């Protein structure tokens, strides 16, 4: 009961915050509010029993999206200047659409209804068969990596392509070799702030450790490659913030980033091809080991690893592509 009330409250806050984001013309403030939005979203996901999703939203929304948005703002502008001419047309259309949607909600089953059509078809099958076919507690991981491995492969390639796209757009230019000019501000980092630097250096290993935990414990608790990748990327971004771009790129040079970016997706695909070579179907892990269940375990672990590596590589390359760029 109390959780229901809490969910109610959080959703109301969500709407209010969204309204504020839409209204503010200061983009910097909007980014801050967007991080609040993401926090509320994650809390809601958690209340709606989606622990894995909440963890993903936490890992992505709390750190990375704010950082990326700010990096983009630093390269563009901070405030919205003009007002649109189409404002009222858009408002009218959107209001009409909302009314239609609200009307449509009246005929769908209420939240949590066990007899809703969504809960009838495939989901029970997954819940029933995961224990003996795959034997890992986290059904979400099981579906993600094994039952619907094709989908996830596709998603990984979308992420990969987006990363490549950003790199094409912004390039991985090297720092100018000449020492004549003052380095662009982003390269400085927070070196002169003792407190964040000390604390950051202290906390960094724990974030990486936690990322590894999420990666390899993902079959048993909430977690998996996507979350772990985001957390790891956040850790390296933290390092880049603290020590400056240059140091961070010394630690993980662009070439290594490229390698990460590519090898994750490659690993995923290679596991699939491996299954074919061993006589199974593409991404059919049963053949990977003598025992089908052990094969599934191995396959899921490798695939999740591939996802984790790929996501880390992509997010990190994206961040560096933004951070290295000098404002026009």
């Amino acid at each position, binding site marked *: 009961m109390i959780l229901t009330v809490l969910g109610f409250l959080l959703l109301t806050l969500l709407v209010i915050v969204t309204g504020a984001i839409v209204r503010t013309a*200061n983009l910097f403030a909007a980014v801050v509010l967007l991080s609040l939005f993401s926090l509320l979203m994650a809390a809601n996901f958690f209340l709606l029993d989606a622990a894995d999703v909440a963890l993903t939203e936490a890992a992505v929304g709390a750190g990375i999206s704010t950082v990326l948005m700010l990096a983009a703002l630093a390269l563009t502008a901070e405030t919205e200047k003009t007002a649109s001419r189409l404002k009222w047309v858009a408002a009218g259309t959107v209001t009409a659409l909302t009314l239609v949607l609200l009307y449509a909600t009246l005929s769908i089953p209420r939240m949590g209804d066990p007899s809703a059509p969504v809960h009838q078809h495939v989901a029970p099958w997954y819940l029933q068969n995961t224990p003996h076919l795959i034997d890992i507690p986290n059904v979400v991981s099981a579906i993600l990596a094994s039952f619907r491995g094709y989908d996830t492969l596709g998603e990984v390639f979308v992420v990969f392509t987006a990363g490549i796209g950003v790199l094409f757009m912004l390039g991985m230019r090297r720092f100018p070799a000449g020492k004549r000019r003052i380095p662009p501000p982003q390269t400085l980092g*927070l070196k002169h702030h003792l407190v964040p630097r000390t*604390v*950051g250096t202290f906390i960094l290993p724990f974030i990486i450790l936690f990322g590894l935990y999420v990666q390899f414990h993902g079959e048993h608790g909430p977690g998996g490659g996507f979350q772990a990748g985001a957390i790891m990327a956040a850790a390296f971004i933290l390092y880049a913030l603290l020590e400056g771009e240059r140091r961070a790129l010394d630690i993980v040079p662009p070439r290594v980033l490229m390698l990460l970016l590519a090898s994750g997706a490659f690993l995923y695909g290679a596991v699939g091809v491996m299954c074919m070579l061993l006589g199974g179907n593409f991404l059919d892990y049963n053949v990977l080991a003598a025992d089908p269940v052990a094969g599934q375990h191995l396959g899921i672990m490798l695939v999740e690893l591939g996802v984790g590596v790929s996501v880390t590589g992509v997010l990190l390359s994206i961040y560096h592509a933004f951070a290295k760029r000098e404002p026009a």
Partner: protein
Amino acid sequence: MNVQLLIDTASWILLLSGSAFVFLGGLGLLRMPDLYTRMHAASLTDTLGSLFILLGIMLQMDWTSSLAKLVAVIGFLLVTNPTATYALANAALLAGEKPRTAPAPEKP
């Protein structure tokens, strides 16, 4: 049985006082005149509030690995929150937010 009662009482006291601190922090955040005093109020939530609430939860739990996780959460909160506040204060100062004078309301 008696010990159980004692633990429950202690945990409730901790939880309630923690909630009180969180509430006061929120109140201060709303009522204080400028950014820096508000920051002071907010840190009340960050430290005492979260410490008490998490300790209260810990008393309710069994000896499992979750307990260690809670300890870790407390530790990280106590370390990272002051850092965040520091960074925030520094950023505000750098951006020219003046302490102790009510900042001109820059309407978004």
